[in-house]
């Protein structure tokens, strides 16, 4: 069996990131992946250190910029299983533009956002998902900006796989992750994760009490219903795969990739360069 080791981490003992890392390892192992086939990417942040803590190829890039690197790596070599793990600040704040536009691109990667509703690594400022009224070192009077609804944003931007997990529900999270990794396109999962050090509002107990898995018979193919659910009109936060749609991914639509040969292995036809040069004569 393939094995994904965990290395020593720099996370706080008790941090929700540990369970997310565990679920990820289990998911990869259950999918029968080998470490060298997998490329893990992150930006900068506590969550974004995940690629350093698991035995796989790793790419810890710039804050907010994991997605463009990830989709391009997948474009370069579709044989890689490409997974991004990053924080809510990284993914929705600094990286917000890449989030909405890579949904449009629909490259076959999985994106796991460790959403602790706070900036962890920089020690406790509001993130885009921090609740209104939440007092921090910077938001001294309580956050006055309406929190982003990432589920709704992803749906509105046209994502084909939209799910929500909770670090405290390993079984469900592992199942979601497996489905996301196997989904042929951009698969997005927002994972609620307690930050025990800097978020004293959205604690483990808070999430534990707030979440409710979607019913077994929930039909994730109805977009309008998914948006209704994502709007959060119900009193519990639904977890599970909220929306799933089958549609061609970037590779299937791109003339250079649709034949299935990885870009980096494609040889240029002989004479092409001469022809190009000749076209200027």
């Amino acid at each position, binding site marked *: 069996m393939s094995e994904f080791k965990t290395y020593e981490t720099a996370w706080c003992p008790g941090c929700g990131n540990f369970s997310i890392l565990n679920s990820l390892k289990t998911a990869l192992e259950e999918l029968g992946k080998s470490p060298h086939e997998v490329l893990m990417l992150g930006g900068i942040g506590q969550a974004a250190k995940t690629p350093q803590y698991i035995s796989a190829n790793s790419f810890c890039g710039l804050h907010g910029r994991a997605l463009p690197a990830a989709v391009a790596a997948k*474009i370069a070599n579709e044989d890689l299983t490409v997974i991004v793990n990053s924080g809510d600040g990284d993914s929705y704040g600094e990286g917000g533009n890449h989030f909405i536009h890579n949904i449009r691109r629909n490259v076959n990667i999985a994106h796991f956002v460790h959403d602790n509703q706070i900036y962890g690594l920089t020690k406790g400022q509001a993130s885009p998902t921090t609740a209104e009224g939440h007092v921090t070192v910077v938001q001294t009077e309580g956050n006055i900006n309406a929190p982003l609804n990432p589920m709704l944003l992803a749906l509105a931007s046209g994502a084909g796989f939209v799910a929500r997990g909770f670090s405290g529900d390993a079984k469900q999270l592992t199942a979601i992750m497996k489905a996301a990794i196997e989904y042929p396109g951009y698969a997005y999962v927002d994972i609620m994760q307690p930050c025990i050090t800097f978020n004293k509002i959205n604690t483990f107990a808070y999430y534990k009490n707030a979440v409710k898995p979607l019913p077994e018979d929930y039909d994730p193919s109805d977009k309008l219903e998914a948006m209704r659910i994502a709007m959060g009109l119900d009193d519990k936060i639904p977890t599970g795969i909220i929306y799933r749609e089958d549609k061609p991914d970037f590779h299937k639509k791109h003339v250079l990739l649709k034949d299935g040969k990885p870009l980096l292995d494609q040889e240029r036809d002989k004479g092409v360069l001469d022809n190009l040069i000749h076209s200027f004569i």
Partner: protein
Amino acid sequence: MYNILVGGAAGQGIDTTVSILEKLLKRSGYYIFTTRDFMSRVRGGHNFSLLRFGTEEITSHSYILDGIIALNEETIELHKDKLNKKGFILCDSSLEYSDPDLNIIKIPMTQIAKELGNIRASGSVAVGAVLKLFGEPFSYVEEVMTSQMKDKILEVNVKAADAGYKSVESLFEHLEGGFSDYMLISGSEALGLGAVAGGLKFYAAYPMSPSTAVLEYLASVGNSAKVLVEQAEDEIAAVNMALGASFAGARAMTGTSGGGFCLKVEALGFSGIAEIPLVVVDVQRPGPATGLPTRTEQSDLKFVVSASQGEFPRMVIALRTQEDAFYQTARALNLAEKYQIPIILLSDQYLGDTTACVKPYDVSKISMVNYDTETEGDYLRYRLTEDGISKRLIPGKTKHLVAADSDEHDERGWITESATVRNQMVEKRMKKLDGLCDELLEPEFMGAENCTTLLLGWGSLSGPLKEAVQTLNRNGGSYGALVFGDIYPLPQKQLKKYTEGRTLINVEQNATGQLASLIRGETGIACHDSILKYDGRQITGEEIVAQLLEGGQKS
């Protein structure tokens, strides 16, 4: 040598007319050099192209005209003073402009085109007329037009050219040149083609004048050349895509102009510390900020040599000519791979949009370098080595695991806070410069070996400087010029050899003399005087000559 100006408003078809004319003239043997001067708008305003052609190499545009093809009256007003005594003005009969001192040739272009059933063919009437005016045969028209336009409009355009041809008498005689087998290519196309030749697999960019020409050229050949061209949502995405692709094994490049370069600066340092090969093209235009979007300047040099926080090895190559643009781009991609560093290619609007004749590129001159494919035993991505270069494996193409990290890291690529490892890694990275410095290309020297005045320049001023030095020396001057292509790290051998005891004048297309300042910072050598131009229009060889002879340059 002849020089004609085609001018009018944006949207009047100057580009098409000029592009057919230059191809026809090359086909008939001329050396071609065509520059483009246009405004940042899609319709209206005033644009023009200068088409210079002759039987020897031409390296600069010139404002001394043999003819003006005026698509509107404004063109005549603005440019008539630049006409030679023998010069003509060709325009549509509908223009009311008249001046007994000028040789104005009016032909009913629009009417002819209308009669032929396609008003847009009026440019072809002008093409035909120009051919005749310069004593050219009509024979290549059909061949060249076939390569330039869709079948269904071919016939009417050929007819229009024929009508134009018949409507005037010859004024100049045909000169016999040997350039019909040369390429006719713009700097930006040459850059794109060089990238293809250098093994490019992935190009990501966000549109920005004047760099868009590179994006569009690569997009046009991507399918056949197997280069995946992706338009990014912004420049930050573009450069981070290039890094992701490069890390994953697809040779990658990104291109932009000043403002977009700003947004790629953070990623330069990431390429530096994570040792991911990256080539970034900056096609310069006048700044600051939005500045003059469609014009030219050389004012990003100091910016790009030190862009991004912290310290890491990098290389900056200034492209001088349509030849450089090809070979140096191919070389840059391979040096980036070899040293695992970011390389910046500096072009500018003048070079990028100017078409010139060049000898067909010889692909065998390019030395290709590839990433490593496998390694025995333990693999350390950032292994400390003699020359600072560690084996670069590609994730998924080996059983080993490959890491990249924008934090300081150890030999495996894992985050470290160790002072010792930090020192080792800084030194490892900087050591790569030793190897790189050994293979720097010295600046090109042109002119008289024993000159008394040495002009210093870089990039696209190469051509105007070449013409200036030739003119000056032909008239008894004692001038030389050193023109930098590789510019950072600064090659110093020729500099030390040629500057000693000479009057040094830097000639630059900027306001502060950035090359002079770089040279002084790196070598202590100070220029005595400078010729600086920063109005967005490239200086001509003739203007350099005039400024030197009048001694009016600023110091």
